[in-house]
């Protein structure tokens, strides 16, 4: 066996400068001898030991183990406590993204269509999960804490289109006390009050105006 590793002697090249692969000398490597049963049983011992250890395998997808608490999963667009969206469409997440996975278009908040506090909301928000590398720089860039990451990791699908998540796929669900936007801001409050956390739940007057605005969009409006 060791003979076969002997470097082959090739005819010296005329130039003497150019080297062929065969000119490189090999170093002999220690090979385990055929008869070392002790060494083999050492390897089998590792396997044998494992039979008495706790089983790490999870029968996914029948069993789904929880991730670590701060696992980087699918993104979520959060809401203020009255239901208004936190996203202001500033595109800082898109700017921070090293994979160019985020596409944002801003929109104007009008009295009839107040989606977030202040002047501006995210009208189009897309994250392409074929590109996203889950680095979380977008979350760090977000000035309103609108974008955070959930622990959801099941992000596989059969087409490219389905892996481009739209705003409605990413928006957080409505919780208790929230009203589906668009609706006006909390009475007597401006966007700064929202950012300081002084709005804690929706005001009844917001519901009535939201109802009017949502009349048509009610069906499709519910977050998945």
């Amino acid at each position: 066996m060791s003979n076969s590793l002997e470097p082959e002697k090739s005819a010296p090249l005329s130039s003497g400068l150019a080297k062929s692969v065969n000119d490189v000398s090999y170093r002999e490597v220690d090979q385990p001898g055929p008869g070392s049963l002790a060494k083999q049983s050492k390897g089998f011992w590792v396997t044998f030991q494992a039979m008495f250890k706790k089983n790490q395998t999870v029968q996914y997808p029948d069993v789904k183990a929880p991730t670590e608490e701060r696992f980087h999963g699918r993104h979520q667009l959060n809401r203020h406590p009255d239901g208004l969206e936190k996203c202001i469409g500033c595109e800082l997440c898109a700017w921070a993204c090293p994979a160019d996975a985020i596409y944002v278009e801003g929109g104007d908040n009008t009295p009839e269509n107040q989606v977030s506090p202040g002047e501006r909301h995210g009208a189009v928000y897309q994250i392409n999960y074929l590109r996203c590398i889950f680095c979380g720089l977008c979350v760090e860039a977000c000035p309103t804490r609108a974008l955070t990451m959930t622990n959801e990791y099941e992000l596989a699908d059969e087409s490219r289109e389905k892996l481009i998540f739209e705003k409605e796929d990413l928006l957080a669900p409505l919780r208790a006390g929230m009203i589906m936007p668009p609706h006006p801001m909390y009475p007597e409050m401006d966007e700064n009050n929202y950012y300081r956390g002084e709005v804690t739940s929706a005001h009844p007057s917001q519901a009535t105006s939201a109802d009017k605005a949502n009349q048509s969009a009610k069906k499709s409006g519910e977050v998945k």
Partner: protein
Amino acid sequence: MTTQESAPQITEVEMITVVIDGFEVTVPKGTLIIRAAEKLGIQIPRFCDHPLLSPVGACRQCLVDVEINGRAFPKPQASCTIPVEPNMIVKTQLTSPVAEKAQRGVMELLLGNHPLDCPVCDKGGECPLQNQAMSNGNAESRLDGTKRTFEKPINISSQVLLDRERCVLCARCTRFSEEIASDPFITLNHRGALQQVGIYENDPFNSYFSGNTIQICPVGALTGASYRFRARPFDLVSTPSACEHCASGCDMRTDVRRGKTLRRLAGDDAAVNEEWNCDKGRWAFKYVTAIDRLTQPLVRNADGELVAASWPEALAAAAAGLKGARAAVLVGGRATVEDAYGYSKFARIALSTNDIDFRARITSDEEGNFLASHVATSAVNYSDIDKADHALLLAFEPEEESPIVFLRLNKNVKKRNLKVTSIATKQSIAMDKLNAEFIRVAPGAEGAAVAAIALTAKSVILLGERASESAGLISAAVALADKTGAKLAWIPRRAGERGALDAGALGTLLPGGRPVADSAARVDIAAAWGVDSLPTNSGRSTSQIIASLAAGELDAVVVGGVDLRDMYNSVDAIAALKKSFVVSLEIAPSSVTEVADVVLPVAAITEKSGSFLNWEGRPRAFDSAVAESLNRSDVRILSALADAMGTSIMLGTVSATAREISQLGKWDGARVPFTPVAPVNPASPSGDQAIIASWRRLLDMGTLQRGEDNLAGTRRQTVAVISEKRAASLGVVTGDLLRVSNATGAITLPALVEDIHDDAVWLPRNSFGSQPLTDLNAVHGQLVTVVKA
């Protein structure tokens, strides 16, 4: 103020050497420290300083240490207001800790009241305040009080939004409005911490140049309604482009996001538009996507309906209709030079005719003669206005018809008191701003008034395209220019007209200004094109082509970018085309589409490359801004059509066409002789009659302004203008309704009593509620009846 501006007038400039940060630099006397430092590559932070505006020292950001003759100023000085002097030693923030500290201090104070709006602000990402706060500011602020607040954005016009919280009071916008545009509609109100930019109570910021204030605002205080929250600078792909809206020839930048044009900005070309443009050029770009574009070829079937067809089918149908027919070409004023050259070559080779005219408007033979004899390949330019001692405006309303020419005139009026004279029917806002001598004449009588104007060889005569509507005016202008040696420039309204003229899209001219009647010129072109001979008889003009189509002397016509409603007797023109075989090359359905037999869709300006010649004859080349468009330039389609007819014109691409044009060069032989035309006496109105005068304003109902409602909001009010004397005799005051009518129809508009010739009434052309060309079929100089409605 700067070296750039004073250079043309001063022949010998005194040079001064100063030391900045230990480096010597020699600059002309009068140069500001901040610009001398720029010459060394030393960037001093600044907000209020702008090379084209007068120094004001408002923001105090550019503080530097200055020492003259060994004596230092006790405190840092604003480098944007102090001109260099001999033996001056300047230490900027790079070498002086005092200047550095002063700049950081100023920045801290500027940011003290500046809201934390960056994420919602349109300027974010391209904001001088953001950038300079990073480079010359402290990361932490020591000011922790409540910031001063104002009501968030207020519309100071339908297209400009003002956020006063963000303003750093640099006064760039107010200085621009006052010094450059002469539209002092915005000013700094209040004092102290409450100082703010504002408009007059009942006067919105309705300036034709308001967009420039947005572009020069160093913070996000002024933003545009149409670009509000659309994109960030890193989303945009910028392409240098040229403006397609008028013959001024502005350098532009087109910003595209994902195949959609989001904004256009004025480019920086010191010889043409400096750094400015007009609002139409800036904002009227949505027509490309807003109007109902033609997407595929259409062919009229046996039932008389236009149906979609494939390109080969449509080209075959067009070729079959044109082959052997007596055909002509009408090409509109929006064609690029390359497209116009394509039409010109197509007419001569594929159709064997000289019947081609680019003038889709009211024309005269006098004008055609003048263009061939004087304008083609001529080169009067903007710097001639800078050098002129007197500018004479004939049938030309600069602010409405060529806004950058207005800005150049205005600059010379402000800087060196240029004398401007206008022979017109009506006083106008622009004439008021230019302090122009207004020679009031009745519509049609312009020509007679020209001879009396005293000019010198340094003067310029600016002749508008409406000169064709007043018989004898062009001849009088030519005679005056010949007599005095003054420079004579023709300023059309549309961007493509001058290029089409030089490309030979005229019955009497071949490309490069070669006269059709000159056999040497024909041989020249025939050799270059590789054909045996070219048609020899001079071609028909637009009106003659339409008359010949109506009379059956022509069978077919190729029409590109023409709206028949821009012409006199448009109803007859549409009827004439209806009975002929019409091939239409258009971006969107128009009045020609209704009568066309084959419709071929072409690329709009942002989708193609090409060039325009502005009124100076200066090439304004541009590239396609939307790369992925499937639409093609007219010249490529004409080339394919010529191939289908079996008479190839070999113009497969725009760049090949441009190469061929430059190889042809200009004609250096004899020009077409000019035959003067005698002026005719203006109509004499009696009783309720008045002579109509009418022209287009900058912002009207033009097809290329569709889809941009914010821009439309700053249109000037549609009014009928009459003189005081007529108003008194009709018992009308400003605001009362007037009915202007003739046998064809009537238009009712609010009256405006202004300085206008007593015999005349003025209405805007193609404006909202006022279409004298189609509704009255009345052109300049005709009689209409004016009564109180």
